């Protein structure tokens, strides 16, 4: 209902919504974001029933009729491909370019730079750039030591830029002890490990640009923390010590890595249906046989090869055979199975080891 005080007619949103974008196909005239208004849009209806001028131009790209034409057609395609870079399919006209980022960074970074050797991109996918930066971070010889990064918030693509993700150091965030001092818990957890969070300000944005996924800039708080730090050359710094040796990495679960050789073996065992605890024991045995240092824990194996609860339901397919074998080896382990009229196994009773010797008699 209209407000009684409203006199002007209800305003309507004249901007094209993101949903409406699927109805339009942009033809790029100039890829700069400042010239978005120059982009010409063609309605889908026009594409289905093109105007006469478009129909005429269509004949120019008709397939060649004979071999000579085919040869010249291929040559012209080659020249086109040489001139224009091949962009991924996901590249759209509203993405920023590397040049735009360089201009923006000149103002934002205030003369500071990214760490030496840090992979900045471009990479085809977000997962690729994440793994490249994580590998670089975990290497003790680069970036001043070993640390790991985690995925933080994500910003969806807008009309002016592509999708962006914030990557932070795994120590970013408020430590649990600080949180508990603010909101004390009644339940004490003696086995709880201390928090690794140190409120580290090492963080970077990665964004989908026209060239692919690239590191763009750190958040403002990270730059401010870097300016305040002793190292005034880098735009992102840690506020905690980094692991300087391979041996010290073993202490931290996020820095531990399963050797590639053992990883393939573990994947093979998992496909065979082995549980994570059995995989762990098999991997330890494999490492000992091949003189590889055992740098894995049962928790690492559970995290990587463990099955979800939905898959770990008890399989009692061969239970009857197993119970028969158990009884033949130990006569005290008795059992009984009730089968209904249709031959379906309906009830099973089995004694546990030493169950019948345990005081109930």
């Amino acid at each position, binding site marked *: 209902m209209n407000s009684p005080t409203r006199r002007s007619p209800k305003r309507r949103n004249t901007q094209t919504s993101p949903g409406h974008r699927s109805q339009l196909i942009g033809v790029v005239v100039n890829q700069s974001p400042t010239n978005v208004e120059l982009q010409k849009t063609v309605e889908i209806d026009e594409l289905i029933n093109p105007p006469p001028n478009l129909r005429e131009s269509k004949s120019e790209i008709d397939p060649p009729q004979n071999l000579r034409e085919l040869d010249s057609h291929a040559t012209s395609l080659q020249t086109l491909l040489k001139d224009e870079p091949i962009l991924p399919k996901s590249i759209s006209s509203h993405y920023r370019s590397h040049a735009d980022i360089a201009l923006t960074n000149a103002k934002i970074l205030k003369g500071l730079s990214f760490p030496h050797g840090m992979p900045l991109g471009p990479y085809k996918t977000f997962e690729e750039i994440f793994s490249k930066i994580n590998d670089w971070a975990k290497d003790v010889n680069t970036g001043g030591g070993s640390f790991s990064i985690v995925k933080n918030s994500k910003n969806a693509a807008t009309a002016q830029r592509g999708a962006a993700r914030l990557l932070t150091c795994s120590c970013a965030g408020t430590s649990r002890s600080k949180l508990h001092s603010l909101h004390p818990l009644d339940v004490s957890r003696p086995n709880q490990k201390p928090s690794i969070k140190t409120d580290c300000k090492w963080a970077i944005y990665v964004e989908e640009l026209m060239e692919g996924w690239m590191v763009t800039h750190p958040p403002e708080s990270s730059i401010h923390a870097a300016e305040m730090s002793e190292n005034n050359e880098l735009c992102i710094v840690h506020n905690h010590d980094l692991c300087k040796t391979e041996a010290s990495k073993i202490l931290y679960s996020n820095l531990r890595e399963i050797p590639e050789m053992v990883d393939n073996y573990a994947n093979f065992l998992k496909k065979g249906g082995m549980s994570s605890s059995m995989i762990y024991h098999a991997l330890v045995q494999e490492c000992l046989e091949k003189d590889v240092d055992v740098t894995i824990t049962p928790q690492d194996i559970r995290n990587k090869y463990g099955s979800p609860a939905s898959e770990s339901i008890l399989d009692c397919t061969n239970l009857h055979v197993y119970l028969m074998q158990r009884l033949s080896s130990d006569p005290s382990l008795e059992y009984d199975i009730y089968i209904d009229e249709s031959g379906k196994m309906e009830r099973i009773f089995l004694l*546990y080891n030493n*169950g019948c010797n345990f005081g109930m008699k």
Partner: protein
Amino acid sequence: MQLWNEIGNRVLMYDTKHGTNKFGLNLGCFTTIDSAGKSRVLAATFLYESEESFDWAFKKFSFFLEVTHWFYLQMELSPWPTR
């Protein structure tokens, strides 16, 4: 607690857990407490929850473990609260 200490391992608990295997049979464990206060699983069943099945399970338990006298104490648990 005093009564619990006196009767000790003469107490037997039996409860079934829902949907623990792919055949839909419910796993039920006969559990007691030893003199050291530790839980001990004596026997287990796989069955569909029905009065007839439970009767069968207790009869089997009595038969194998030669239990002659039973005093039942049935505890009905309230269903999970729905949001």
